[in-house]
């Protein structure tokens, strides 16, 4: 990806740390939203088709309401859907440009496809409102919805394959064609895992948003309520039961470099939380009440976030050397910049009139006079040998070495480069010119 390398500013140490937090933050914002959008659109399309098959006002209403819940506001679509993806691309371009990973191109392609998918699903939702949900429009509506869903799925498949590639440094050298990237068991399992967890969280979300969300409570409507509750809870339960299975295969096929005990532990926590959610779902299905809606949704959301964190920890592990290289580079740049700054400061300070004398009377007079011996030698006796050798005097003063056996060593006074240069130029230019006679 040399192409990007030219545009990208090398990240500094703080930026790398910031990058990690921003990445996980954008994923935590985006993926639950994406999961809800994916799952709910799927449900909505299924009920649209059921309704077409055997017309039922409840089905068509559910189909519409689902999209109204998940694609309610365009702002939410931008904030949770599109924006985090753009941030993700920017972050990854900065982080992985210059390494020989071809994955960046795929990542960008994936993001473009996903954004198209999101727009299509919003269009699907607005078709419900622009026209009467009569059957003549069925094909147009379902067509838009299904293609949006498929585009979204393709986009996420590509996204995951590029992320999975980052997790396999061992493969970076071998990727020649897109097929190498896409045909990997690890990507397949990860993708299936994403789909079942999306369906699970959408099911839990359906119950939560239909019954427990202010302004949309349908508790009073018996028949519709029963349909929504049973469908939402069963979909959540059924798919949540597949999560441990797919997750197992995903972890078995993950590369060892990406692993650490943390990754497994966070995954286990996610599983246990899903388990508690499932038990509550069973209780919800049996009782006539819906008070378990909020805790189930929150548990599923939490477990979903845990899964994302576990993945992100794996990515951190896999790219540890890459990060180390970036840190080294950042350190070098910082050091060079610091040195340049110091040199410039020193020039500046040395050029300030009177600064040298000031430093001399503050820091040197304790031990030195010009013409008498105190702790150190009379300066007029030692300065001639530094005549024209400014750099040498500066470096001596900043870092004294043993010189004359008649004197104790001079301590390191911890002068800054600027102070040392100022005092040296004062001694060599002003004082020496005045007080030392030209050598014969």
């Amino acid at each position, binding site marked *: 990806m040399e192409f990007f390398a030219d545009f990208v500013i090398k990240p500094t140490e703080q930026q790398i740390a910031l990058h990690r937090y921003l990445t996980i933050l954008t994923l935590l914002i985006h993926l639950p939203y994406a999961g809800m959008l994916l799952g709910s659109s799927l449900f909505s399309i299924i009920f649209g088709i059921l309704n077409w098959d055997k017309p039922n006002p409840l089905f068509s209403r559910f189909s519409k309401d689902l999209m109204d819940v998940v694609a309610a506001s365009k702002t939410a679509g931008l904030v949770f859907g599109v924006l985090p993806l753009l941030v993700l691309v920017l972050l990854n371009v900065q982080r992985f440009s210059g390494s020989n990973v071809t994955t960046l191109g795929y990542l960008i392609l994936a993001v473009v496809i996903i954004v198209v998918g999101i727009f299509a699903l919003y269009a699907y939702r607005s078709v419900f409102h622009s026209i009467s949900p009569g059957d003549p429009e069925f094909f147009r509506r379902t067509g838009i919805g299904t293609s949006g869903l498929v585009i979204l799925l393709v986009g996420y498949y590509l996204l995951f394959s590029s992320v999975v590639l980052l997790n396999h440094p061992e493969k970076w050298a071998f990727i020649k064609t897109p097929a190498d990237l896409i045909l990997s068991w690890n990507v397949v399992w990860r993708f299936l895992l994403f789909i079942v967890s999306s369906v699970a969280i959408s099911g839990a979300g359906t119950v939560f948003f239909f019954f427990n969300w202010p302004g949309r409570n349908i508790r009073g409507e018996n028949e519709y309520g029963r349909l929504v509750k049973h469908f939402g809870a069963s979909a959540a339960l059924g798919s949540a039961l597949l999560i*441990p299975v797919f997750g197992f295969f995903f972890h078995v096929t993950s590369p060892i470099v990406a*692993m*650490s005990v943390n990754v497994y532990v966070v995954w*286990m926590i996610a*599983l246990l939380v899903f388990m508690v959610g499932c*038990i509550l779902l069973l209780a919800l299905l049996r009782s006539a009440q819906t008070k378990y809606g909020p805790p189930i949704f929150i548990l599923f959301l939490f477990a979903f976030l845990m899964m994302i964190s576990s993945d992100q920890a794996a990515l951190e592990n896999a790219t540890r050397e*890459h990060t180390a290289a970036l840190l080294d580079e950042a350190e070098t740049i910082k050091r060079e910049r610091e040195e340049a700054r110091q040199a410039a400061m020193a020039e500046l300070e040395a050029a300030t009139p009177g600064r040298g004398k000031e430093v001399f009377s503050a820091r040197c007079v304790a031990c030195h006079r010009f013409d008498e011996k105190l702790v150190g030698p009379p300066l007029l006796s030692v300065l001639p040998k530094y005549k024209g050798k400014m750099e040498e005097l500066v470096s001596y003063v900043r870092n004294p070495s043993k010189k004359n056996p008649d004197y104790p060593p001079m301590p390191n006074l911890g002068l800054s480069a600027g102070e040392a240069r100022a005092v040296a130029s004062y001694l060599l230019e002003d004082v020496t010119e005045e007080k030392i006679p030209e050598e014969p």
Partner: protein
Amino acid sequence: MVRRLIIAAVIGLFTLFVAATVLMAYRWHAAHRPPEQPIAFSHRLHAGKLNLQCQFCHEYADKSPRAGVPAVSTCMSCHKAVATNSPEVQKLHEYWENEEPVPWNRVYSLRVRKYVVFAHKRHVKADLDCTDCHGEVRLMDRVRRVSSLNMGWCVTCHRSRSASTDCLTCHK
């Protein structure tokens, strides 16, 4: 009754997979975690910052099947004088005085060396870089394994570099 059974089944399913994860974590910890070394030797310092050539220490990499780890005397060429008061280097001096090799723990080893033929020499001579198989060792404080060393890994590379993929190349 049925309800209890269903709940038990759900709990059982999840417990099964949590247990499987515990096993995976244990296996990873036991077999794949970067091993502790008797001396905290850092490649990042020696091969990275000090920029020593890999073959200065792994001197047999292009000459023999094994790359080999360096003898204590290689280290002592510098550490007779360098960093002698560091406790880690003092451990090195102990091995030197007792004329013992340092018992480094292996990071890379083929599980079934018996019937797999692998030689560094051929690979290093074919202009493969150490990083192609061992990752960015220069940036690792402690060496960790970055490749699986399983057959698929060998064959993928052989195919992509058009080296032989005949069974008898690697199996005798």
